[in-house]
């Protein structure tokens, strides 16, 4: 790298400059140190604290630093004696996983389609950038305003219900449009499709268009090209996007709360209810459980494709 930079004097000046003076002097571990320190201080250390606190005892107003598995035992309360009925924590995770699968599948289909359009049908870079920015519109307003603005749209006297009634599709306004599983999924898709679009688009933009042409020349149909050429080459983007969407949905409690009328359980909501009641250890225990389950899912996803190699 350093030799390369030295040999091309007309190349990128800053890159060449740093490469020439610093790269040989600094060993690799030192170069990685700043990120490692930030990562250690603000991610690993808090995570260790959370895990430690999850094994502490507590009362109404303080955390007691003595080892106990109380928080875990109480979190899984009733899982054995209520069987085959599901206990609270299992019901919650069934619901959260259901949202995960539905939202993941929907954002994947929509995100892939949009990314495909951007990468293969929009030819000019300017338009690609402009249209990608357009996808960020859901993020232009604050979370709260976005949430509240669903009421005039999906509420009983909202625009959609008004339209349905005036078209005589329903006789009375329907209630399930808002504060329901439907509205939670809708809000998730509305918000998180963007996290699918960007990585998939990024992967697709790197696909050599000659490969697609070669496929056509070899007699492949449109679907065959898509299935055998585009999708395999977009895999890293798909997996990264999936990781984004799955981790956000697993940990979300604001969207589920507001769109579900606070009546739908989520892993995040259990944590937040516990925190609000000043019960930090059980909140920490639940956080550790969510983390564990999310890591398992991500591990499965990364088995499908080796991201490190692909990047």
């Amino acid at each position, binding site marked *: 790298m350093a030799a390369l930079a030295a040999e091309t004097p007309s190349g990128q000046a800053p890159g060449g400059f740093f490469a020439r003076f610093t790269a040989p002097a600094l060993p690799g571990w030192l170069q990685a140190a700043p990120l490692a320190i930030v990562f250690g201080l603000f991610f690993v250390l808090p995570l260790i604290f959370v895990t430690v606190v999850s094994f502490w005892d507590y009362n109404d107003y303080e955390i007691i630093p003595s080892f106990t598995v109380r928080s875990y035992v109480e979190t899984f309360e009733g899982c054995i004696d209520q069987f085959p009925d599901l206990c*609270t924590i299992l019901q919650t995770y069934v619901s959260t996983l259901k949202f995960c699968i539905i939202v993941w599948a929907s954002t994947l289909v929509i995100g892939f389609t949009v990314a495909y359009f951007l990468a293969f049908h929009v030819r000019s870079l300017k338009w690609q950038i402009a249209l990608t920015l357009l996808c960020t519109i859901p993020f232009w307003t604050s979370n709260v305003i976005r949430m509240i603005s669903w*009421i005039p749209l999906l509420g009983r006297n909202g625009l959609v219900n008004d339209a349905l009634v005036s078209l005589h599709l329903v006789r009375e306004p329907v209630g399930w449009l808002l504060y329901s599983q439907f509205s939670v999924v809708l809000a998730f898709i509305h918000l998180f499709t963007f996290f699918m679009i960007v990585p998939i688009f990024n992967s697709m933009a790197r696909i050599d268009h000659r490969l697609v042409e070669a496929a056509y020349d070899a007699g492949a149909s449109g679907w065959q090209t898509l299935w055998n050429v585009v999708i395999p080459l977009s895999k890293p983007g798909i997996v990264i996007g999936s990781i984004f969407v799955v981790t956000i949905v697993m940990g979300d409690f604001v969207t589920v709360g507001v769109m579900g*009328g*606070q009546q739908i359980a989520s892993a995040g909501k259990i944590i937040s209810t516990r*925190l609000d009641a000043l*019960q930090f250890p059980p909140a920490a225990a639940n956080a550790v459980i969510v983390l564990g389950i999310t890591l398992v899912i991500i591990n499965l996803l990364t088995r499908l494709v080796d991201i490190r190699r692909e990047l």
Partner: protein
Amino acid sequence: MSNESETATDVSRRLLLKGAGAAAGVAVGSQAITGFPAVWSQEPKVLRYLGTAVNQSSDIAKKLKEDTGIILQYISVDTDEVTKRAITQPNSFDMLDTEYFALKKLIPSGNLLAMDAKKIANFDKVTPVLTKGELPNGKKIGDQGTAPKKVMFLEGQHSTKFSATPTEWVTLIPTTYNADTLGIRPDLIKRPITSWAELLNPEFKGKAAILNIPSIGIMDAAMVMEATGQHTYADKGNMTRPEIDMTIKLLTEAKKSGQFRAFWSDFNESVNLMASGETVIQSMWSPAVTAVRSKGIPCTFQPLKEGYRSWATGFALSKGVTGKKAELAYEFVNWFLSGWAGAYLFRQGYYSGVLDTAKAHMEPYEWAYWMEGKPAEKDIHAPNGSLLEKAGTVRDGGSFETRMGGVACWNAVMDENDYMVRKWNGFIAA
């Protein structure tokens, strides 16, 4: 001619002197304000006031500064965050605004300092509703839950034990209190509502709501349990485990049959639900009902035969407040109870801690409407001047004696709070 010119010079010289004096005054003033080092400048009189935005009126801060020079720095967070901060960062505030029921968690932490009632001029005039649990006429009122009288006094300044009888050491100086009930949309319900049982009446399927705060939601459900005759609690604000199970079961059945439209967690959310007609009957706060009504939408804060679920807020001192800061805090408390703030809170639809001093700052027709439950002689206006009620209307629930006398229970933290929160999570998941 020369005389005239002399006079002119004279005048201008005098003006010049005056001007210089004024300029010097400004300079001195600005030094004091900007805090430039100056021997005679005082430290700015600042109190950091932690609480929820609802209880942090800029008008009160402004008037306080005019009257006493104290600058009230508001730190606004949400209800649960107030408690969290008090326990985890007691030095991040001087005064803390919270509900009486939170004291059961805050006082044992030792992070708050009791105030000396002897240094508070009007303390003996604080309404007996809060200090003794009785009306000014001596009638006892409901004390289920964390009634203020149970947590109002400590055994000593640094004690973490509540005293059952009044002592010199006060935990919270009352700011506002009120009696809560159900808000309804009379135009959509079209029949009289008289009982808490109506909250879970299948007639309002998909159009009812409760608060998304477990300890309050479960008490509303308990009011329904008693109203329908299913169970009578020894103390709705301190249930036993079987009682919690029973109450959660009632809520779960209602939820599964689709009774609730939503659980609201924010003032504006409750206003939106009611104003948009998503709900027609819900647990509500008085100012939220006023807010719906001010949009021209009929909404009633419906008095019910089983009584009200009441609450009270107040402010406390952080344990970090000593010396000069403590003097300042007492000055603030004395100002707060001297009437102007009380009258202000009355006009917002709350009751104030010291009734007499608030009365002195209100017009007789205002007092008659808010306090005595008489028909308004003139239009009733909010502190910001907006029209609340037209002349002739009567306050929902009537007089202070009828409303506060009808209190059935107080917002509470139960002994079995931990168990209740777990069951509540189960209810949400069901």
